[in-house]
């Protein structure tokens, strides 16, 4: 299994080169690290390759060259199915919106990842109790969590359920892709507060992608995407 505690980095990217199928575009990331327990804000506009970078870190895409270590494991060396399992075991993901399966209850949504990860399931006593504890900590009433379909929740409530789903089973790496952009500014602050508290409790690293620089002061470190990565076009350099 992954030796999570020996490596100092939660995420370590070295000399990664990725080519999109067709060879029209490519992305180069020479070096990029997120330390354990560290919170990093990655600033970048859409189209700057951030989706690609996140997909690489999450193991959806495999690099053409280079090494991507997540929680001490070189995921580039894993097969596709193993990368999927690794993601299920070790990474919690929060999107901008549309995080939830609309037809399932919030509770079912939170518990779905356990279906794909034995490791997460093994890290907890009673999944249901822990899911309810999480949602209580995130300020969601239990009736909303167990009684209704996720599609009936407000956007803010859905985002909190998404946090609970990302955090269930205490993954060591949490990745958030513009999780606040669908919220109004008051709710944004409150939501970030909740995310930070959960990530700190779980002693996880947080990599958040956003284009909103106002969020910067809450993070340990702020990096611009163009500082660490460069887009390549066919025929270009």
């Amino acid at each position, binding site marked *: 299994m992954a030796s999570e505690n020996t490596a100092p980095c939660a995420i370590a990217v070295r000399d990664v080169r990725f080519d999109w199928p067709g060879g029209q575009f490519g992305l180069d990331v020479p070096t990029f690290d997120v330390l354990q327990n560290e919170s990093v804000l990655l600033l970048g506009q859409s189209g700057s390759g951030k989706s690609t970078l996140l997909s690489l870190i999450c193991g959806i895409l495999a690099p053409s060259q280079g090494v991507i270590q997540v929680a001490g494991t070189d995921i580039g060396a894993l097969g596709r199915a193993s990368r999927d399992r690794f993601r299920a075991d070790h990474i919690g993901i929060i999107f901008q919106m549309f995080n939830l*399966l609309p037809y399932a209850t919030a509770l079912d949504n939170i*518990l779905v*990842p356990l279906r794909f990860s034995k490791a997460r399931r093994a890290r907890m006593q009673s999944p249901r109790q822990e899911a309810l504890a999480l949602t209580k900590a995130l300020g969601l009433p239990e009736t909303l969590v167990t009684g209704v379909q996720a599609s009936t929740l407000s956007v803010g409530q859905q985002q909190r359920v998404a946090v609970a789903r990302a955090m269930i089973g205490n993954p060591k790496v949490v990745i958030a892709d513009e999780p606040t952009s669908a919220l109004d500014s008051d709710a944004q602050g409150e939501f970030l507060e909740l995310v930070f508290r959960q990530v700190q409790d779980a002693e996880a690293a947080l990599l958040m992608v956003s284009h909103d620089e106002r969020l910067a002061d809450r993070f340990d470190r702020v990096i611009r995407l163009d500082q660490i990565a460069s887009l390549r076009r066919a025929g270009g350099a």
Partner: protein
Amino acid sequence: MTLTRLALASLKSRWLTVGLTIFAVAMSVALYLGVEKLRTGARDSFTDTISGTDLIVGARSGSVQLLLYSVFRIGNATNNITWDSYRDIANRPEVSWAVPMSLGDSHRQFRVMGTTEAYFDRYKYRGDRSLEFAGGDRMNDLFDAVVGADVAAQLGYSVGDPIVVAHGLASFSEHADTPFRISGILAKTGTPVDRTVIVSLTAIEAIHVDWKSGAQKPGAPTSVDVIRSMNLQPKAITAIMLGAESRLKIFSLQRAINEYPQEPLLAVLPGVALQELWSIVGIAEVALIGVSAMVVVTALLGMAAMLLASLNARRREMAILRAIGAGPMTVVGLLLIEALLMAAVGAALGVGFLYLGLIVAQPILDARFGLFVPISGLSGREAATLIAVVCAAAAVSLLPAIRAYRISLADGMMVKM
């Protein structure tokens, strides 16, 4: 939260389209199984038209033709059997019993058959069921007639009513001078007996006393009293039902009759002739089963189209599953489970529809058409059909499944709209 529960929740959220798809599958399965049941019912009813008779004998023609006129009362005999030949055959040592039949007259649209009382004992159908009387009794008098259930029902006859027998078929020259009385009405059998008027062999002779070559002799008709005093031994009959002393003797008896030197005769085994006839009629059966199989295929293709159409709307769903660690194969699995669930529920519902339909239709089919469709459990063949439906559902959903695989591989965890 298992994949199946996930699939169920997803199906439930699209209950209207899913419900319609399941309904279409159920209806097609019910139709297919219904046709299958009707088909076997029709075949059994058909081959059960006559049983317990070892050989049917008539003038030499084709076996199907002999069967048609002697059992189904369709068409006419090309020739008669002389009474002497009949006596000869009936007295052979291999013959256990013989029932002569004389056909050729009609009453309204129904055939009249002259026979002996033994007919009521020897004629069996649907295994070993004998003719039963719904009212009245067998012929007691020369001018008594027994009518089948359809004859009584369609012409509104009851026991004791007089009827007039016409000479020949579809003829206007009625034997009005010799009226018959209905002595009994037979219970419904689902065989051509229902559409037959049965009189004694001597009665057939009696109504032809004053007739020659299809026309009434000129002059005053012979009075009923005179006819009663005449010798009414028939000179010819149309066909004979034979029972052999032992099953082993049937074939030698058949050969002996077929090689009968005095007259060209034909003896057929009813079962063999019935199968021969069914092989002609059965082409319609194959067409019917083919059409209903196509309906099942259409319903399944509809399901595949529905799944395919839903894929675009479900890209986010697939992306979410990928983000939380599901592989593309899991997405494919989810889709296949959905298809299998729909097909299985559709098939089960179809079986329900089938039996509901059978319960409603069985008495109607039996009473109207004499077609007895037993309400039995599913045969091995039918159960295999249901399994085939579910397997075919999996096969046709491969198309949407492969597409889902491609989409979820391309989209990853971010939907590119």
